[in-house]
C-alpha cells in the first residue's frame, strides 16, 4: 500500500490530474539517463519504487518478497511464451500476433492488483496479463493459429476476449463497472489500452462516462511510446497522458511501467477505489514496446537501434530480478529451474494446439453461434457449404514462412522481393 493518508475521491498523494510521487517516500524520477517520457522533459512526476539497478527507492517495499517472486515468475513465463510465439510465427506455424515484449511489469503488476471478482478487459497485447488471469497457452496459440476456439475465456473467469479495434473495449469496461454498481458488488474493471488509443474518441467518451457515473474503472494506459510507427509525441500534445484524468474528474497517475512494485502499488490503490465505490482512475504506465507492433511490422523503418538499446537498460525483468537477487530471494539456479519449467509447459501446450489444428478443425464450425438458434436460411447455407467442401481441404494450416523486411500490415502480405536488374 502506498504511504500517506487516503482521502475520499483522490489517491493519497496524487491530486486529481496531477502526477504522483510528491509525498510519503515515493521517489521522483531522478538522474535518469534517458527520460522515460520522450516529450518535453521534467513535466509531471512519475511514481517509481525500484531503479534500473534493482535498488529500492522507498523506505519499505510494498510487497513481501515471496509475492514479488510469484509475480516475477509470471513475468518470466509470459516473456518466454511471447518469444516462443514469435519463433512459431517466423517458422510459419501460426499467424500474426502482437508481442508483449518489454511490457511485462506493466501488465503483471496491474493485473495482480485485481481480484478474480474484478473484470479484465484487454486490448490485443496483454498476453502477460491474460496468462496471469488463467488463460491457457494453448488457447492463446489457437487464436493465433486462426481458430475461434482460442478466443474462449477461462471457464467462470470475469474476462472478455481480446479486442482489436483500437480503444473500443474501454466502453465495455464502463458497462461492466456500471453493472457491478447496479448489482452492489464490490468489484471493479480494469481496461488496457495504449498511448495510440488515447486519440480515439471512444476512449474519451468512456472516461467521461466513468467520471460522470462514478464508476469503478481502472483505465490502464500502457504508454509504450509507439503506435505502430507513430511516436508518443506525435500522438498527443498533452504531457503526461495521465493529466487528462483532470478533465474527467478523477485522479490520474503516471507510473514507471517497467517498475513492478510501483505499478502494483498504484493499481492496487486504484482497484481498491474502484471496488469501494470511489470511482475511476487513469494510470499511465510508461513503458516500451521492445519488439514489433505485430509480427508483420518492421520497426527498423521508423525507429533507431540506439533508442531500442536505451530501453533495454530499463528492462522490467532485469530490474525485478536484480531487486530480488539483492534481497537474497532469487538466484541463477532458481532462474534456470523456472525456465526449464516454463519450457516444459510450452512444449505440451504447443503440441496440444498443433495437434488440435491438425486433427480437429471443422470448417462448418463457422456457422455456429452466429445466432443463439440457427435460423433456417443459415442451416441451408451450412448444408450447401458441406456439399461444397466434400473431399477438399478448406482449412488453412500454418501461414507461409516469414521473410524479413516485410510490410508492417498484419497478415502475410510481404513486400514484393526486389527482382534482379531492377
Amino acid at each position, binding site marked *: 500500500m502506498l504511504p500517506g493518508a487516503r482521502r475520499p475521491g483522490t489517491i493519497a498523494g496524487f491530486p486529481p490530474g496531477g502526477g504522483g510521487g510528491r509525498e510519503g517516500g515515493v521517489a521522483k524520477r531522478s538522474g535518469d539517463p534517458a527520460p522515460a517520457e520522450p516529450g518535453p522533459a521534467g513535466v509531471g512526476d512519475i511514481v517509481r519504487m525500484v531503479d534500473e539497478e534493482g535498488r529500492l527507492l522507498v523506505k519499505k517495499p510494498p510487497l513481501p518478497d515471496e509475492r514479488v517472486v510469484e509475480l516475477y515468475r509470471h513475468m518470466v513465463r509470459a516473456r518466454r511464451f511471447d518469444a516462443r510465439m514469435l519463433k512459431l510465427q517466423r517458422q510459419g506455424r501460426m499467424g500474426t500476433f502482437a508481442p508483449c515484449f518489454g511490457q511485462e511489469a506493466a501488465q503483471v503488476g496491474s493485473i495482480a492488483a485485481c481480484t478474480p471478482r474484478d473484470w479484465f478487459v484487454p486490448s490485443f497485447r496483454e498476453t502477460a496479463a491474460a496468462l496471469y488471469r488463467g488463460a491457457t497457452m494453448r488457447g492463446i496459440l489457437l487464436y493465433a493459429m486462426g481458430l475461434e476456439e482460442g478466443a474462449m475465456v477461462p471457464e467462470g473467469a470475469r474476462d472478455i476476449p481480446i479486442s482489436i479495434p483500437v480503444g473500443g473495449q474501454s466502453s465495455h469496461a464502463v458497462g461492466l463497472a456500471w453493472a457491478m454498481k447496479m448489482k452492489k458488488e464490490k468489484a471493479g474493471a480494469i481496461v488496457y489500452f495504449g498511448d495510440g488509443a488515447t486519440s480515439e474518441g471512444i476512449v474519451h467518451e468512456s472516461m467521461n462516462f466513468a467520471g460522470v457515473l462514478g464508476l469503478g474503472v481502472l483505465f490502464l494506459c500502457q504508454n509504450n511510446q509507439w503506435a505502430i510507427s507513430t511516436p508518443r509525441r506525435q500522438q498527443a500534445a498533452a504531457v503526461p497522458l495521465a493529466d487528462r484524468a483532470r478533465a474527467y474528474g478523477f485522479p490520474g497517475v503516471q507510473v514507471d511501467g517497467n517498475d513492478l512494485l510501483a505499478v502494483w502499488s498504484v493499481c492496487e490503490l486504484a482497484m481498491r477505489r474502484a471496488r469501494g465505490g470511489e470511482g475511476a482512475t487513469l494510470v499511465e504506465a510508461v513503458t516500451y514496446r521492445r519488439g514489433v507492433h505485430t509480427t508483420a511490422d518492421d520497426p527498423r523503418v521508423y525507429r533507431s537501434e540506439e533508442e531500442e538499446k536505451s530501453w533495454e537498460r530499463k528492462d522490467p525483468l532485469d530490474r525485478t530480478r536484480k531487486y530480488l537477487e539483492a534481497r537474497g530471494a532469487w538466484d541463477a539456479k532458481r532462474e534456470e529451474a523456472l525456465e526449464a519449467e516454463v519450457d516444459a509447459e510450452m512444449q505440451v501446450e504447443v503440441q496440444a494446439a498443433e495437434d488440435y489444428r491438425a486433427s480437429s478443425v471443422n470448417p462448418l464450425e463457422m456457422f455456429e453461434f452466429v445466432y443463439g438458434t440457427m435460423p433456417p436460411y443459415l442451416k441451408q*447455407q451450412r448444408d450447401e457449404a458441406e456439399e461444397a467442401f466434400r473431399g477438399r481441404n478448406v482449412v488453412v494450416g500454418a501461414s507461409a514462412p516469414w521473410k524479413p523486411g516485410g510490410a508492417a500490415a498484419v497478415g502475410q502480405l510481404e513486400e514484393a522481393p526486389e527482382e534482379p536488374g531492377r
Partner: protein
Amino acid sequence: MSGSPNNLTMVEALNRALAEELERDPRVMLLGEDVGVDGGVFRVTKGLQERFGKDRVVDTPLAEACIVGASVGLAIGGMVPVCEMQFSGFMNFAYGQIQPHMSRFLSRTRGQRRIPVVVRAPSGGGIRALEHHCESEEMSYVSVPGLVVLMPSGPRTAYGLMKAAIRTAEPTIFFEPKSIYRAFREEVPVDGDPYPIGKAEVVREGGDLTVVTWGAMVRRCCEAAETGAGIEIVDLLTLKPMDPETVMQSVKKTGRCLVVHEAPRTGGLAGEIFARISEREDVFYSLRAPLARVASFDVPYPLFARENAYLPDADRIAAGMKKTLAA
C-alpha cells in the same frame, strides 16, 4: 517478372497515381495513420512524405473519425484530401462522419459545398490476417446516397481509378482489395489518364453466361472460367454509381447471369443487380436460367484458419458457373 519500369504491382500503381496527383495539384494531400514515415502498413504511400514533405503527407493521431471529419473540413477549406483508413474494418469508427456529414454536405447546402475527399481503405480477405482486418464492407457505403464507391481489380484499374477519385469533386470511397496488392503486375503508364468513374469493363468475352464481379474476385472468376467456353466476365469497378448498361447488354446477350462477391450473401450487391435485371423488361425476358450468385456465407468473417471456407473459391465459383450454364 518486372521487365519494364512500368510493369507494376497494385501497390506500386497506387503509389504512382498518388505521387502524380500530389505533383499535379498542390491542393492534394495525404493523411492517415502511419502513411508518412512508415509509408503505410502496406507501403502504398512509401517515399511520398520524403518527396512531398510532412505538410502534405501527414501521420495523424490514431483516430479514424477525425481523419475523415478533418478531411471534410480540409475539403471545404479548399484542399483535396486523400485519407487512409488503415483497414476497412476500422472505417466503422469513421462511419459517423462518412454517412451523416461527408455524403450529405452537397445536398444540405443545395450544391454550395462540394466535398472532394477520397477515403482509401484496404479491404477484403484472403491474406491470413487478424480479426477485423478482412471484411468486405462495400454495402455499408453503396447504400449511402451521395457517395462514389470504387473497387479496382488490379494495378491498371487501381492507377486509373485513383486518379479519377482524386479529380472528381464527389466524396469517394476507394476500396483496395488487399489480397491482390502484390499478386500480379500490369503495365501502368506514366502520367496516364484517369479511368472513368461509372464504367464497367468486359474482361473476358463469351456468349453463354455473364459473370458480374469486382475487386479480387475478378481474377478468381477468370481462373474459374478458364476451362469453360462461353463465359463473359464483367468487372464492375464502380460499385456506385454503377454502370448498368454494360451488365444489361451482356445479360441480354447471354441470357444467364451469375454474380460473385466477397461480401456476405444477404444484403450483397448481387441483390441490387438482380433487381435491376428484373426491372428491365427486355433483359428479364431474355433470361434462360435463374439468376444465381456465389458469395461469402452469412457468418462473421472467420479467423484465418477457416477463411478459405468462407470466401468464394475457384471451386465454388466454377460449380456456380456450371450449374447456371446447365439450367
